[in-house]
């Protein structure tokens, strides 16, 4: 039971990170019907940006207060990652809008390869140990087998919940969110009604990148190490989460993220860690084959 509770906490933490990345996939797919293959690498890039900004703050500017540094790192990483994703969309995806369907996917795969190797070239291939932050650990049971909950885990879950609430408000209750949902339903009609479709799509990419940046900061804090190839597998898992929850659905992406996080953690603890990635890929394949619309998604109606 203790072990179960511990794995539950770990799984929810991991699932929060996946959920944040999954939102980027699900929104882009919802609005332009494209799998943004480079999103996992944008997430990896944001972890690097966060790491370097944190080091600038502590080593060059000698900032003493850690909470302040954390807030600055978070905001800067969100802003710079958004700029990156904006530029990626502008350069690699926008010229291909209206082209045949595979073109954006291939372009995104190329972008993914480019980003991975770009980070490898400019920052080197070795693991980067992230600076160790003080981490208070609460003991929840005090029994023989301790169930612990660390400050980092609390932080990750709180930030996820707060951001999701803010983001939910943005999509459901602002004119920007309305424009986004309109573009999702019918891009041409939205354009005819005076919505700037290009700008709306850009903003979608920006929001997706900002949430991926939050996940990147969390990832760096939680695992304490970043590497240039850290984007691919979390990216595929987050995509799995988006598909499992129902692609195009925001609550679905978070639900899917939590489920994938829990499945991964429980699989590792009760079966074997060797095959935990296989489990994630199997879930992806099984969901797409038997339940393509996911848990909360709308079934796709094919027009002839």
């Amino acid at each position: 039971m203790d072990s179960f509770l511990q794995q539950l906490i770990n799984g929810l933490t991991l699932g929060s990170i996946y959920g944040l990345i999954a939102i980027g996939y699900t929104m882009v797919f919802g609005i332009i019907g494209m799998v943004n293959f480079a999103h996992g690498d944008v997430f990896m890039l944001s972890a690097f940006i966060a790491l370097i900004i944190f080091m600038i703050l502590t080593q060059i500017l000698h900032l003493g207060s850690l909470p302040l540094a954390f807030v600055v790192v978070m905001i800067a990483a969100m802003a710079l990652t958004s700029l990156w994703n904006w530029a990626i969309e502008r350069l690699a995806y926008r010229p291909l809008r209206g082209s045949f369907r595979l073109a954006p996917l291939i372009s995104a795969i190329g972008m993914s390869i480019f980003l991975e190797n770009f980070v490898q070239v400019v920052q080197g291939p070795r693991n980067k140990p992230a600076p160790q932050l003080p981490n208070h650990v609460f003991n929840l049971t005090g029994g023989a087998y301790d169930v612990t909950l660390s400050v980092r885990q609390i932080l990750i879950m709180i930030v996820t919940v707060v951001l999701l609430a803010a983001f939910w408000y943005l999509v459901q209750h602002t004119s920007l969110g309305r424009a986004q949902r309109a573009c999702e339903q019918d891009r041409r009609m939205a354009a005819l009604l005076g919505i700037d479709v290009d700008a709306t799509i850009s903003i979608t990419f920006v929001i997706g990148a900002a949430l991926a940046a939050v996940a990147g900061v969390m990832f760096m804090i939680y695992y304490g190490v970043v590497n240039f190839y850290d984007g691919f597998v979390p990216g595929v898992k987050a995509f799995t989460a988006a598909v499992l929850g129902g692609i195009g659905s925001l609550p679905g992406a978070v639900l899917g993220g939590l489920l994938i996080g829990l499945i991964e953690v429980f699989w590792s603890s009760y079966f074997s860690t060797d095959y935990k990635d296989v489990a994630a890929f199997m879930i992806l394949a099984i969901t797409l084959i038997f339940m393509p619309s996911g848990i909360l998604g709308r079934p796709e109606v094919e027009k002839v």
Partner: protein
Amino acid sequence: MTAAPQTTPLASADESTASQLVPALRTAFVSALVAFGLSFPIISYHAESNINNELILIGRWPLSFGIAALVFAFVFLRQMANSDWRIWFDRFGSIAAGGMGGALVQAAREGEGVAPPSRARLAFGRWFGPFMLGLVIVFPLITLGLLGPAGSLKWINNYGVQIMIYVMLGWGLNIVVGLAGLLDLGYVAFYAVGAYSYALLSTTFGLSFWLCLPLAGFLAAMWGVILGFPVLRLRGDYLAIVTLAFGEIVRLVLINWVDLTNGYAGISGIPHVTFFGIPFSDDDNGFAAIFHIPFSPIYRTIFLFYLILALALLTNFVTLRLRRLPIGRAWEALREDEIACRSLGINTTTTKLTAFALGAMFGGFAGSFFSVRQGFVSPESFTFIESATILAIVVLGGMGSQLGVAIAAAVMIGVPELMRELDWLKAIFGEGFDPTQYRMLLFGAAMVIMMIWKPRGLVSTRMPSVFLKERRAVAGDLVKEGHG
């Protein structure tokens, strides 16, 4: 970088130049600012571990200022350029990409349906393929004659054999993606099945390559059916992602099933290729001794080259013949419109499964060639990047065009390989400069640029397999494929 090209009339050049200056400067400045913002933390600072294993930052500000300045200059010049430079870029690009003279400039226009095919173009189209084939056949002999056994080894092995493997893989995947329109991102799984089949069968049971080759193809085809069966209902992006997942699962199983595959360490000591039973060794009964020629490792390489060439040509031949059979026509019909296909009574299940199986079979052949060439296989050779490379070759080649795929394979594999030869750049950029580390970076960038420049690939026109009166190329824009 950000603005659309100006299309001002050529007349009144002075006036338009003056009025362009301010907005061009503004756009260039904004672009440079964006470039600087992009490069700010990730290029301006390099995080490096020092001796105590602590991360320290090393400033590289001049680099990011340089990038911003370059972007400024590029965008400014592009804004100020009077004529619509894109046309010239397109024309120059089609010459450079085809590499074979001005005929392709015309081809590009014909592809858009602007100009009728000229006689030169027709002759070019007829003779280009056979000419290239002849060139490829004599390639090892020419390099051998020019550079001698020691000097030519690298060229035949790193360029000839390597490119031919990808031509073969490209042609194999072309059946699935180009003809049947099924986007497969896990093709490397079948390559891996072929490679491990030969490796395991030869090291465990001592079977010869010629016996293992059909077996490997058969096993890969079986896997093609097994993996193809669950994905019959999927299309487009979803199909791509599921096949990607299958490809990764196969790789992860190869890594984790240590009893069978030896995990990360891989399988070594795989028997090398023999000349129909005669080993390429310096023994008395070796190839060199029997044919009374001095021993050299080049003979094995040349034999491997012709072997993979024969396998690739087999793939090409089978594909071309199948296109004329009902099954090939069903594939192409399926690619164009699955719903129409079904309503006309084509069995889409068997059509898709045969495409998967045949594509996988050729992947399996290529895989078993790979392991006989290397003598060693490990899961590292079968990563997602390989699948993406092969798919990129097929898409850049024009999805369905055999010649386009071959050209794309030569460009996508040959050019990054040529980067290894650029050691002289060290003289310019200093000793620490290593051109090879930019290979994959440029590869990814090339994929993006090619998609923007020619989303339908190098050879975008399509020759119909069936026609009413005369055979006429179908312009790329009229082809609807890629959604099935």
